[in-house]
């Protein structure tokens, strides 16, 4: 453990950084404006929403009528738009969001990792990184418009249908966003497109941090590239991979903009997700209590990450 230089002493042998009353009030003065804003606009609203979830709300967002856990019961057992286990494959916003978790996180990690591993080996790494990263800067609204064009069933607009038609002359253009069986995957891929750059940038930085002599030693011992990747790189990348996965997970639970722009939850209700249901029930169907219950479900899904962040920060400080 590094020894900290002793704090300078005053004549009387008193430490300079003594805990004076004046100092303690001053510290509070610095953080108070931020705390007030957080209290009024973040903490109080969260409390309000959690309480509202146990009420039937009205259009003025008042606590109209206490109904206990009925909102949650209705959501999980009696609302096929939110959770429908009666058919196969199961449907509803919750199941759609599960599809997002699996395919959005899986694809983003796979493509991002593959690009990172390959890109560090070429001289034009920066150019590739920029090309992949640019969509990251763009608003989800713009991403939505861009992919509405790509997926368009009009073969003079949609390049996806044009390419498929070019490969197979008998191919009939598909309305990718118009079919319940395709729409979720089409949306997921558009969002993967926008997120892979982040995964790639984090992982290329991490790969460069792996000591070269470790890999060199393995190569000298005759390990193949695949073995080096599996046994050395992947284990050494576990921390950045977990950070990226958490980031992707939070994204997936909150995903809203791109769906609002591209499909509005449709066709029918087949591309709704949790965040979209919250918006729809609260602001269109006039059921703020029901919408609040959906928001609480989001909070519960994200809570483990909150706890993880706080724990990680505390343990880091113990180490440092």
């Amino acid at each position, binding site marked *: 453990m590094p020894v900290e230089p002793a704090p300078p002493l005053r004549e009387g042998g008193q430490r300079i950084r003594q805990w004076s009353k004046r100092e303690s009030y001053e510290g509070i003065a610095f953080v108070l404006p931020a705390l007030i804003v957080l209290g009024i606009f973040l903490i109080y609203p969260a409390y309000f929403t959690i309480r509202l979830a146990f009420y039937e709300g009205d259009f003025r*967002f008042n606590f109209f009528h206490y109904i206990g856990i009925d909102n949650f019961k209705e959501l999980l057992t009696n609302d096929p738009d939110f959770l429908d286990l009666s058919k196969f494959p199961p449907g509803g916003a919750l199941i759609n969001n599960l599809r997002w978790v699996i395919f959005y996180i899986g694809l983003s990690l796979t493509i991002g990792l593959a690009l990172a591993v390959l890109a560090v080996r070429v001289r034009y790494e920066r150019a590739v990184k920029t090309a992949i990263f640019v969509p990251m800067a763009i608003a989800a609204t713009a991403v939505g418009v861009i992919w509405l064009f790509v997926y368009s069933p009009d073969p003079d607009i949609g390049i996806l249908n044009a390419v498929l038609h070019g490969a197979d002359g008998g191919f009939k253009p598909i309305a990718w966003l118009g079919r319940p069986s395709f729409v979720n995957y089409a949306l997921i891929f558009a969002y993967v497109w926008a997120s892979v750059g982040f995964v790639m940038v984090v992982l290329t930085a991490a790969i460069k941090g792996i000591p070269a002599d470790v890999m060199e030693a393995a190569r000298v011992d005759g390990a193949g590239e695949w073995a080096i990747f599996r046994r050395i790189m992947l284990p050494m990348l576990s921390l950045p991979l977990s950070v990226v996965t958490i980031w992707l997970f939070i994204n997936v639970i909150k995903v809203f903009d791109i769906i*609002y722009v591209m499909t509005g939850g449709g066709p029918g209700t087949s591309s709704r997700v949790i965040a979209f249901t919250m918006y729809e029930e609260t602001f269109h169907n006039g059921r703020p209590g029901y919408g609040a219950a959906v928001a609480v479900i989001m909070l519960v899904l994200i809570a483990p990450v909150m706890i993880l962040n706080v724990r990680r920060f505390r343990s880091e400080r113990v180490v440092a």
Partner: protein
Amino acid sequence: MSTVDQAVPLTARTRSERLIGFLTRTPIHIALITIAVIWLVPTVGLAITSFRQPQDIATSGWWHAFTQWDWTLHNYGSVIHATGMGHAWVNSLIITVPATILPLTLGALAAFGFAWVPFPFRDTLFLIIIALMIVPIQTSLVPLLKLFAEHGGLNKGYWGIWLAHTAFGLPLAVFLLRNFFITLPKDLIEAARMDGASNMSIFRRVVVPLSVPALASFGIFQFLWVWNDLLMALIFVSDPDKQPMTVRIPYLLSTYGQEYNLLAAAAFLLMAVPLVVFFALQRYFVTGLLAGSVKS
């Protein structure tokens, strides 16, 4: 390069070895370049569509634009004036600038307190702020809208959205800036204290000038976050004349859904600002984004 080759002749390779090296790397080049091109195509397609004549768009794909050279700026003129997108672009800016400066200022002050001025319960409060970093916006929409509507109609102007974005940007600002401030040399702060400088003047004269990279990283992250936000603007800016581009473009979609030239131009106008920020300030942008990865 050549000096290295001369200095280490042992590593110089024969022509056939180089050829083998090149051939084994060819799949890597092909894979990388293919993916990079696939990633660029959607954006390039939108950009090209925005510069084409409406009748060309209707009759041939944008990939024919290179052979039918008939580009125009007309779409931008129509979308800015006829559909009010110019106005919405200005609204986006009016929303974004204060919603960046407010959390930056409050966040920097609080971060300084957390880093350098001890006070009771400091660590507990900081842990609470870390936990607040990923609270979903959805838990605030209804109560904030109610609050804004019942207290002076803050959702009719810009104050509602400014305050909401400030609250949602603050935890990240405090977290990032406090972690940066705490790495500043302790001796420097102590020396200023010995000279009788007040905490406020230490903050202004020592901490802020030394922390420009961190302040810039958060500022850029927040600027893009607010500029790109749809959901909060949808709820907290109720006056159509004050709505930003992210909200107006979906309206454009529902009213001009088949006028691809207008849609493409509008989307490109929305993208232009983040792209300029991205290419001009790439370094800060990436650090800010990496640091902001704890948010979303």
